[in-house]
């Protein structure tokens, strides 16, 4: 998916956002898959190999089952991961790093496999396997924008909006500074 057009009507925008990515629609979670027969798994692996590789995490042709195992069988992980007391999140980050390193090496060897800018879209980076963890409760995403006309209203509606503006008067500015001072 390219980022070609900047102007998008509200209906087009909503259609685009509501449409599920193809990799998500076909996805099944590993927790459910484990109970299936081995034949199914082999078939799935076969299909996966036939598909063109894209994205930073899938391009190295490494089975993503390992990611699922982080959460289901932490006792079988390698020594480095055991050192981290089987913390699932840290294990996942380790895996992300590993995939990245292997992917980079693979790219160096085979230049033809380099991803085009279109393949590097955000949509394709969303893999169900990589997100087999809950979103941390402290996670926040902050976005800043100037008040412009062309900002999509649909997205603005989804967000919590805060206006940050410097106070106009000296008195208000001083009050703001005083409010920011803590007892510490």
């Amino acid at each position: 998916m390219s980022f070609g057009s900047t102007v998008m009507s509200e209906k087009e925008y909503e259609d685009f956002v509501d449409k599920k990515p193809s990799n998500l629609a076909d996805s099944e979670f590993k927790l459910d898959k484990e109970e299936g027969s081995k034949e199914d798994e082999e078939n799935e692996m076969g299909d996966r190999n036939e598909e063109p590789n894209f994205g930073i995490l899938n391009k190295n042709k490494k089975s993503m089952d390992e990611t699922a195992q982080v959460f289901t069988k932490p006792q079988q992980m390698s020594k480095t991961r055991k050192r981290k007391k089987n913390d699932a999140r840290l294990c996942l980050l380790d895996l992300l790093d590993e995939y990245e390193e292997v992917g980079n090496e693979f790219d160096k060897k085979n230049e033809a496999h380099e991803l085009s800018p279109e393949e590097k879209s955000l949509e394709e980076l969303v893999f169900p396997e990589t997100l087999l963890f809950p979103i941390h409760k402290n996670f926040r995403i902050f976005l800043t924008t100037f008040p412009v006309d062309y900002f999509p209203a649909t997205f603005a509606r989804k967000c919590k909006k805060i206006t940050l503006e410097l106070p106009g008067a000296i008195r208000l500015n001083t009050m703001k500074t005083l409010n920011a001072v803590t007892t510490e």
Partner: protein
Amino acid sequence: MRCFRPENLMHEIKSFIVSFLDKRYQEPPSFDFVNIFNQTDRFEPILFMVGQNVNTFVELNNLRYLTPIGSSITIDYQSLGSLCNERIAKMIIRAAATGQWVLLDNLHLATDIIPNLHKFLDTMIELHFEYKKNLTLEFKMQQEKALLAKLKGTG
């Protein structure tokens, strides 16, 4: 006939409010960032509409020390406006896993990525709940198995 001079109108309205009600109705409330932050959650992006000469990173850094969780938080900063989609996605995934904050600055300069970003966040939230659901199902199945084993043992 009574006429109003527009340049004096605002001042007169303010003095009318002060004389009729109280001084506190005329003064704008102080900006309580911590209180606003407490009303947010992890599933909803926070959009700052900033004016000129506002440094959001400094404001967030101040907020970080005012919140009880601040000591364990780091802020991942990315100014938009260039091709950095891959970096943004990785940054968000990492922050979501470890509970950090992500600040994407100047979104108005990169409106192209907004639909994809919207979809990305929606997908992430969807997967979060799907994961939770699967986890609950797994837990229930384990409980049922344990119960069945217990029943078999007693029967």
